């Protein structure tokens, strides 16, 4: 028994390291869990991308759930996410609000003309100040905000069909069940 002790110790370490490897493949290493989750979304008042004279505030969007998708023309992964938004957006059952982040409006419009526009509404945050209130640190990021203005779900990085099916849609379903 005593002679086997080092072997058991070794096996314990193997299991520990194996668990570590498995655990690290299960979630995104760089995603920071947002402290804003299940809290009211920060107040904002931002101009529309296509009509900069008009602004949209958080209060304007209350009453209907929406998916706030932070994107920019300079963001490479946003290009990878875009086809997913175009394909899945209409079937989500919530409004799709595009949040153009730290982008020149002309660049954003050109980018949308080229890739297509899946958004129901587009707002622009060129200086990026409001995005700090949302805890945005890189595009793309997506926030699911319910009719009362509470952030119900956040995804950092591009939405993939897998993420939409396994995380976003269940989150929308849970939200809709709650508010008939």
């Amino acid at each position, binding site marked *: 028994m005593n002679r086997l002790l080092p072997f058991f110790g070794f096996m314990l370490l193997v299991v520990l390291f194996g668990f570590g490897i498995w655990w690290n493949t299960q979630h995104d290493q*760089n995603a*920071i869990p947002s*402290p*804003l989750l299940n809290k009211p979304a920060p107040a904002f008042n931002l101009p529309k991308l296509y009509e900069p004279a008009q602004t949209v505030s958080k209060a304007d969007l209350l009453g209907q759930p929406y998916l706030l998708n932070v994107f920019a023309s300079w963001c490479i992964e946003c290009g990878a996410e875009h086809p997913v938004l175009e394909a899945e957006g209409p079937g989500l059952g919530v409004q799709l609000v595009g949040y153009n982040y730290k982008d020149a409006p002309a660049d954003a419009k050109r980018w949308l003309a080229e890739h297509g526009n899946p958004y129901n509404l587009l707002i622009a945050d060129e200086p*990026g100040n409001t995005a700090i209130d949302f*805890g945005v*640190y*890189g595009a793309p990021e997506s926030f699911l905000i319910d009719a009362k203005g509470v952030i119900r779900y956040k995804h950092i990085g591009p939405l993939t069909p897998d993420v939409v099916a396994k995380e976003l849609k269940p989150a929308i379903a849970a939200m809709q069940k709650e508010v008939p």
Partner: protein
Amino acid sequence: MRPGLLRVIFMALLWFGGVVHAQAIEPMPFANHAQELRFQHLTQQLRCPMCQNETLADSNAPIARDLRNQIFQMMQQGRSDDEIKQYLVARYSNFVLYDPPLTSGTWLLWFGPLLILLGGAGAVLVVIRKRNRGAAVAPEASTDHAPTDHGDDW
């Protein structure tokens, strides 16, 4: 001709290097030197959420630049370091702090080393007890050594 050309290239490289460096961290209009030191001290304690192994002071990421500007403006408004930290933690979680606070999620981080030390001490105790019992049974063990050990013989 050739050394002259090399010299021009060398000077150009030096100059570009200087330009790139100047763009990395832009100078800020601090009210005084003390404020500048305070700013540097504070941004070195904060982690950039984008490039996660850099401090806000070192990082060249756009978000780090925005956060530095935000911190600078909050300092001009007379906010304290704690207030600025709370502002960032409320948005980016405790992740931005290099010195994690003691919470239910971090107690293992704080006390883990102590637990491992206690576990090791327990293992050492068990081994010593076993050895002493063995020594008591062994025929060559002298009778001077009591079988009960007080832990002072090593």
